[in-house]
């Protein structure tokens, strides 16, 4: 555990050539929700690997249970990077993903989420799912950090298993919060724009 985590992180960083930029914000160990565009299987792994060590230890990527439990290697990787696996097929009423996230993160952990749901097939970002809204409604104290992941879809596109080591870039922008009485659709649009704006900085 102690050895494989840095090893995994270094491999992911070397492979993706990822460069992390903090745009108008600073790294901090306070509780945050990093929400990013989703274009590649590597997104969660690379974003998590790029975070500074002490933040990484407190941060858990939220990932799909069906994908990350399929093979032994995926299960192993998911365990190593402390993933919070969400069951996409079977959503129970009293066990909703948002409740699970809030319980699992308690008052120490930060989360990495991909509000688009599935991986984005095209160039344009899809509409955000409402999870981010309900999460910040129940925990309005969380800092919501927009993250734009650039070029990682070329490193490992959908349906490929051999990566091409191009250089990718991760930009983390200034945090947003849910405003009091802000409608769901407005908030989700604002969150999506916050991510999309980072494309050009």
């Amino acid at each position, binding site marked *: 555990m102690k050895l494989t985590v840095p090893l995994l992180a270094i491999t992911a960083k070397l492979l993706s*050539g990822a*460069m992390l930029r903090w745009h108008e914000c600073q790294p901090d160990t306070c509780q945050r929700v990093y929400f990013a565009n989703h274009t590649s299987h590597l997104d969660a792994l690379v974003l998590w690997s790029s975070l500074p060590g002490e933040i990484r230890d407190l941060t858990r990527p939220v990932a799909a249970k069906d994908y990350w439990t399929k093979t032994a290697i995926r299960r192993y990787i998911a365990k190593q990077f402390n993933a919070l696996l969400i069951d996409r097929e079977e959503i129970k009423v009293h066990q909703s993903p948002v409740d699970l996230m809030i319980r699992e993160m308690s008052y120490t952990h930060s989360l990495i989420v991909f509000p688009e749901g599935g991986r984005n097939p095209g160039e344009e970002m899809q509409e955000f799912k409402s999870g981010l809204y309900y999460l910040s409604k129940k925990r309005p104290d969380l800092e919501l950090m927009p993250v734009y992941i*650039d*070029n990682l879809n070329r490193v490992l*596109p959908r349906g490929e298993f051999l*990566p*091409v*080591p*191009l*250089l990718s870039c991760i930009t983390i922008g200034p945090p947003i919060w849910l405003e009091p009485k802000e409608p769901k659709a407005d908030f989700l649009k604002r969150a999506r724009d916050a991510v999309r704006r980072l494309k050009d900085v």
Partner: protein
Amino acid sequence: MPPVYWPSPQMLLFAQFERNIRLDARTNILLFSVMAILLVAYLVGRALRRQPESTANPAVVRTFNLRVRAWAMMCAILIAGFLLDYVATVVLFALVSFWALREFITMTPTRRGDHRTLFWTFFLFTPLQYFLVGVGHEFYGFYTIMIPVYASLFIPARIAISGDPKRFLERVAKIQAGLLICVYALSHAPAVLDLELTTADGKRRVIGMPDAANSQAHQAPPAVQAGQPAVPSPQDLGSNAGLLFFFVLLVQLNDVFQYMWSQLLGRHVIAPQINASRTWEGFIGGVLSTVLVGILLSWATPFGVVWAGPIAAAVAVAGFAGSMTMSGIKRDRGVKDYGTLVSGHAGVLDRIDSICFAAPVFFHITRFFFSNIG
């Protein structure tokens, strides 16, 4: 019955790994002078940075400091390679190529259908080219055509199989150009280390022997050396390491000279839309200055004073061509530097573009005129 000796491919390979690069006295002088100059440049840059109110333009100081750092890095890579051995130098150059190709392809838009082709480009052709160079000049016939012929045929075929016809030729050309410039061309630089150098009149020297032993080696087997002048005088010779260092130094100085002459006398810009800072005055002044330095440093090479000049001129022109070509690609992509996407300052490819173009020129001139071929 005596055992039959079969020279297997493995034995051929491991025999190659035992070669060492000889650092002779003159190469050491060259290396230490350059390191001393770099140290002075570093201290000057530091002093300038600490005095913001000085007359120097801060942007120029910053560029100067970044340049010095890049040169120190190049020096470190070359010296580390020389101190280890030939194969280590080849591996270090392979890593530089890999990174440059990474920057090139990152800058160049490819489509989803190119993914598998790119995988083979990075993980088969790049290592294979350097493997062949590392095995040695016996494989010259293969490594000199592997990428221009076989990789160039493989790339369009593999893209065709992936089934995406959109902008087909353009995508093929992008990957071919990247592989040719970043990998194939650059691999000729470490290949210089494996040439059996001779002087202009064809005297043989043996790599890895001190000068005295070298001279004896020429005298000892008369059958091989029949008809050739007996002892090459020490000033005719230089080591391969010194030669590679001489080459890198010339190309880098050529860049500096072209910039300096452009700043001093530049009037006529060659191609404003490609690179607004390259002028005819800078080009001519740069080539002439590089020729002068080539002649002054000819003691580190087997070229002699007479041939060092034309060779330096060829290297300078090729280096200039490299910078112009890479500027053209950058302008097409609308970026200033190859590193911009990732780090905000110039990338590896910006530093080695002129070396990439000059390396094959320098290698082939040296190989045909100053080494024992075959």
